[in-house]
């Protein structure tokens, strides 16, 4: 038995896979204030016997939320003497060239918690000045006095020679074992002091929270009999061990969203749909990403809240918009929606758990788009009366509207924000959304999908099976991955195959040890080597050249130069006579894990009438009145069934809304494939003309 749990801002989702029967099951519960409680709740709800479980994959947004809300640990920093302000000076640039009023994001470590130690290492790794150990002790007492919880240590050129950072780490372990310590070279072995410092600081900033949470969770799982492998999903889509994640939580920042994108790439392979816009809508955030030619986009640098970080991460755009987004009327009389969310606790007004502020979910309920009796399959009854009362008093009355029109305005605003995020990753990157299908998942993704597609002129929408648990499903589809890199600048001409090999061996032995610790048998291990190379004089690197696995031969080394020239010419249009250099060594160590397949569902004819549930009155903006919508039960749909909107398709954990003319067909794997009606110039529900 394997299972995965994805903790989102509003819901905690579970998916389990029984290897013997092949059965895949889903479940979900509201996210709790103490998130590990939600994980235990959903496990109990599913009645999983943890003694039977061999693998647990987990995704959490705890780290990223701490950064977004600026609620991380009180963090201290130790740098080389003279360089404490590197994190505040940053890269001195601004994202918009004409913005004279630009502000940098605040430095995560205030200036008085940045301590300097005398020491110096040069770019080749030579020690110019030994470490002043006294200064480290002074820093420790300063940090204690100021109640610092976590400390990042980033010294100049530690990527080339980490010995001083290691010495400081040892002093902390002995003198201040209560402090969380991050050594920058353990996060990144590449040059660029700002990005490395920031990546280390960010790790420290979230570490106490994440470590606390993981420790708590593990203890509880053990009490329930779980003793096997515990993994966390990385932002890059691979998985990492529990122990590793405790030390380097920075790599799990986008673990939940990465699960969805990973699932999407597998679905792309299974269905042959090569270009997808993934839209992961939850209660709190809306995450979009692209699958181009079947591949998710993994980048090695990213900017989070204005901070530049160097780490492998899926290219995902995230905004604060979802079912829990709070609606309000501001002082100027304008209707605002989000980015604040009611989350799962207290949640929307209609959850009747103490929420007072109307949300997007309340608006949807008021318009008749949600069935109050079938939320979470009827497990939770929604209070429509409370929702309409809240919208009437807080939104409709101040705006002089009736509650249904006010509700439809709330949806219009949140959808405009979501469509903006889709345009940012498509139109604004030069991709035409008309060349993509929209793959919508998460608890609220399917609800908005058809309207968003219409707004962005996307012609096809796909809703996978169990969309609310799709990110968790993606987690079950991940391999164990470790990324290693090292900046070592070598002239190719003067190098030997054995010199290059020796660096890869060093990285591979790290990878072997890590996979050994992960209990991956040798035959399931793979190592992918690549070199970042350049012409002498060029910047970081110009070309990444993948290498064949195994020992590098002299012949292969000689052909490297030719490959570089060829790839440079085909990428950039020219080659030069300049010498070729290696800049970074990169290794991906992969532990292959057995994965479930998408399974076909029983098929039937075109007629979908067996799945009809009821007719429901829905306020539809295009008509500015209430119209009857047939509702279908997704569990009863068969492959090959088709139907035309207006319609609502309901399942336990999600609702899909089809506008008039949208045509749905059920695919062989049970996914809903919807052709969006072409615009007739009219206004659809919740969308305004623009």
């Amino acid at each position, binding site marked *: 038995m394997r299972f995965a749990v994805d903790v989102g801002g509003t819901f905690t989702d579970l998916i389990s896979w029984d290897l013997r029967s092949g059965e895949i099951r889903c479940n979900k519960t509201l996210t709790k204030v103490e998130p590990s409680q939600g994980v235990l709740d959903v496990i109990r709800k599913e009645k999983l016997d943890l003694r039977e479980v061999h693998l647990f994959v987990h995704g959490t947004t705890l780290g990223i939320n701490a950064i977004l809300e600026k609620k991380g640990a009180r963090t201290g920093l130790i740098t080389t*003497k*003279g*360089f*404490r*302000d*590197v994190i*505040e*000076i*940053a*890269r*001195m*640039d*601004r*994202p*918009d*060239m*004409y*913005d*004279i*009023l*630009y*502000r*940098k994001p605040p430095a995560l470590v*205030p*200036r*008085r918690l940045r301590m300097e130690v005398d020491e110096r290492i*040069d*770019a080749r790794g030579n020690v*110019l000045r030994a470490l002043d150990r006294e200064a480290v002790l002074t820093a420790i007492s300063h940090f204690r*006095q100021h109640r610092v919880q976590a400390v990042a240590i980033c010294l*100049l*050129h530690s990527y080339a020679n980490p010995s001083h950072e290691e010495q400081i780490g040892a002093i902390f372990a002995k003198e201040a074992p209560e402090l969380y310590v991050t050594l920058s070279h353990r996060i990144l072995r590449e*040059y*660029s*002091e700002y*990005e490395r410092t920031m990546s280390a600081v960010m790790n420290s900033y979230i570490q106490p929270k994440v470590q606390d949470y993981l420790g708590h969770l593990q203890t509880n799982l053990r009490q329930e009999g779980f003793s096997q492998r515990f993994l966390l999903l990385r932002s890059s889509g691979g998985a990492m061990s529990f122990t590793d994640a405790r030390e380097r939580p920075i790599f799990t920042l986008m673990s939940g969203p990465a699960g969805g994108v990973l699932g999407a790439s597998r679905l792309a392979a299974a269905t042959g749909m090569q270009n997808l816009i993934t839209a992961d809508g939850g209660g709190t955030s809306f995450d979009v990403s692209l699958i181009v030619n079947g591949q998710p986009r993994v980048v090695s640098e990213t900017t989070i809240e204005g901070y530049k970080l160097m780490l492998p991460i899926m290219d995902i755009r995230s905004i604060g918009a979802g079912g829990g987004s709070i609606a309000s009327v501001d002082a100027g009389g304008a209707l605002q929606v989000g980015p604040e969310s009611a989350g799962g606790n207290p949640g929307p007004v209609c959850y009747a758990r103490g929420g007072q502020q109307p949300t997007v979910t309340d608006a949807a309920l008021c318009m008749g788009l949600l069935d109050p009796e079938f939320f979470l399959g009827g497990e939770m009854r929604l209070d429509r009366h409370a929702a309409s009362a809240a919208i009437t008093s807080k939104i409709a009355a101040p705006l002089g509207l009736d509650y249904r029109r006010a509700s439809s305005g709330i949806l219009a605003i949140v959808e405009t924000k979501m469509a903006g995020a889709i*345009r940012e990753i498509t*139109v*604004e*990157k*030069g991709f*035409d959304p008309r060349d993509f299908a929209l793959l919508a998942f998460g608890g609220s993704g399917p609800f908005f999908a058809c309207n968003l597609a219409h707004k962005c*002129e996307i012609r096809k929408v796909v809703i996978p099976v169990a969309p609310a648990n799709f990110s968790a499903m993606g987690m079950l589809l991940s391999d164990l991955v470790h990324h290693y890199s090292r900046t070592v*600048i070598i002239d190719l001409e003067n190098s030997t195959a054995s010199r290059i090999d020796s660096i890869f061996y060093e990285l591979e032995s790290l990878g072997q040890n890590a996979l050994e610790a992960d209990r991956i048998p040798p035959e399931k291990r793979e190592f992918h080597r690549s070199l970042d190379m350049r012409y*002498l*004089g*060029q*910047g*970081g*690197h*110009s070309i990444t050249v993948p290498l064949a696995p195994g020992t590098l031969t002299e012949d292969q080394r000689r052909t490297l130069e030719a490959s570089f020239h060829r790839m*440079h010419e085909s*990428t*950039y*249009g*020219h080659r*030069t*006579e*300049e010498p070729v250099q290696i800049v970074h060594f990169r290794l991906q160590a992969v532990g292959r894990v057995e994965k479930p397949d998408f399974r076909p569902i029983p098929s039937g004819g075109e007629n979908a009438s067996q799945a009809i549930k009821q007719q429901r009155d829905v306020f539809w903006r295009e008509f500015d009145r209430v119209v009857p919508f047939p509702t279908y039960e997704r569990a009863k749909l068969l492959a090959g069934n088709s139907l035309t909107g207006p319609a609502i398709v309901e399942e336990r954990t999600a609702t899909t809304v089809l506008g008039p003319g949208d045509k749905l067909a059920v695919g062989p794997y049970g996914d809903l494939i919807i052709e969006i009606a072409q615009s007739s110039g009219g206004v659809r529900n919740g969308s305004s003309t*623009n």
Partner: protein
Amino acid sequence: MADPITTEVIRYELISAAEQLKRCFKRTTTLAILYELNDFGISIYDHELRLIADVPGIPLFSGTLNYCVKSCIDQVGLSNLAPGDVLTTSVPFDTGSQPIDAALVAPVFFENEIVAYTALKAHMGDLGAIDPYPTTSTEMYQEGLLMPALYLFRKGELQEQILRLIKAHSRIPNTTATNFLAAASSLQVGGHRVETLVGRYGRETFRSAIQEMISHGERISRAAVMAIPDGTWDIVDWMDNNGVDPEPVNLHASVTVRGSDFTIDLSGSAPQQRGPINSPFPGTMSACRYVLKSLTTPLLPANEGHFRPLRVIAPYGSIFNPAPPAACFLYAWPEQRLMDLIPMALAKAIPQRVTAHSGGDCCDFLMTYFDHETGRGDYGGGVEAVGLGASPSRDGENALLHHCESGCCNIPNEIEETRVPLLVERYELREDSGGAGKFRGGLGVVKEYHALESTTAISIAERTEASIITGIDGGKAGMLNEITYFPGTPRELKRGKHKAELHAGDRVLIRSGGGAGWGNPLDRDPHAVLADVIAGYVSRSIAGNEYGVVLCEVGNELRVDGERTAALRAILSTKRP
């Protein structure tokens, strides 16, 4: 006709083409100032030379590229342009720059007709001036190889003779030649994207989308100018000197807003100078375009329409419109000053959109590591961050590049030390450099270089002595730029524009200027002053002398002494006008 979605796709696809061009150039160039610092400008124009896309880099470059394209067409003739052509031009009066900031221009053809031009200007390396970065030239003939619209590629064929000419004039021939080739390749990569785009949507749809983009740009820019109250505002300041003669040099800008028209009159500024601080008209125009856009449509992707409200008056023969053969190598410095002075002139009209004066310029310090044997080389050092000015509701930002280089980054010290033989001994914020005010100016930086081998060092910092600009509404000026050669030795020397030979062990200390304050410092919240002292942004003596805030220790903590602060502020306020 292009529907609205198609227009948006074309708009962003053009930006994406320019971005790809930029990535390609950054990845293939061989100077750290190009691939890390972004010392370049890149733009795409339509067939009528209207700007349709640019990318972050040096805005002073981007704004001149239409002049570069136009001078190429004027010189070779439109009918002599063919697919696969790349021209290069380096005459300051055509390009609005120094010769080594050479421009490359490539026409983009679709079905035998020009549909666009891609253009790039960058600091290519070295083209053989009297010094690697002259600060004392008196004629353009001393400033490097002048190339008037020469074909670097003709119908796709590299013109080897031009490359030989470039190499023959360069102190670092291989590096410089590689950068010219990288630029030409990048232009073709960007051009190919534009050609594909036109093929996809058709020429007519492409043109109508561009027309709509530009009309929309003009509408929105004019609406923003309309929102500025009508009136005329003047501002005056001084540059330290022209590099050759010792006297300060006068700058005078007069800004007039009438309805939706925005006029900048520079007639009151100094005449053309003997030293190299003359700004050729395309460069002057570029600085003024930046100012207008930053005040009206700062966050929108740029196109020609945004600049339509602008008119610039600069008499021929003056510092902002010099006549050949004036020396122009330091053209960017008077332009940088305009970019601070013009917004500040408008402080009364649109306080919410401007800031007080920044540290003033890009505080440039270069160490040249050129190898005659190999023909390669690189620069150490580079431009430095300054403090930005305060605004009416918040402190100025610490340590940002001056907005003349707003699309640029610093070069990480770790990267610099792998490339050139120097050590950076410290890199930190400069205490007390921000001008006092109710809202304080941002802090400049301190950076200390330690040469490990012999090198020629050159500094180009203005605003080290003659500037008279203070803050706004009682705010004070920030500290000025300060460059100290051989600090702490008998040879110690402070100079703004200077050249010196350094040997192993020699040091140079750069202290960049701070931003000016806004409002009376005695009105600053004493707790904000306390926080500044705790952080080390402001010293305790300045807290007392400038802000009238008295601090006292209570246990280990520093606190505001309320009574003594009130008393001190009462005394200081009677002493000040």
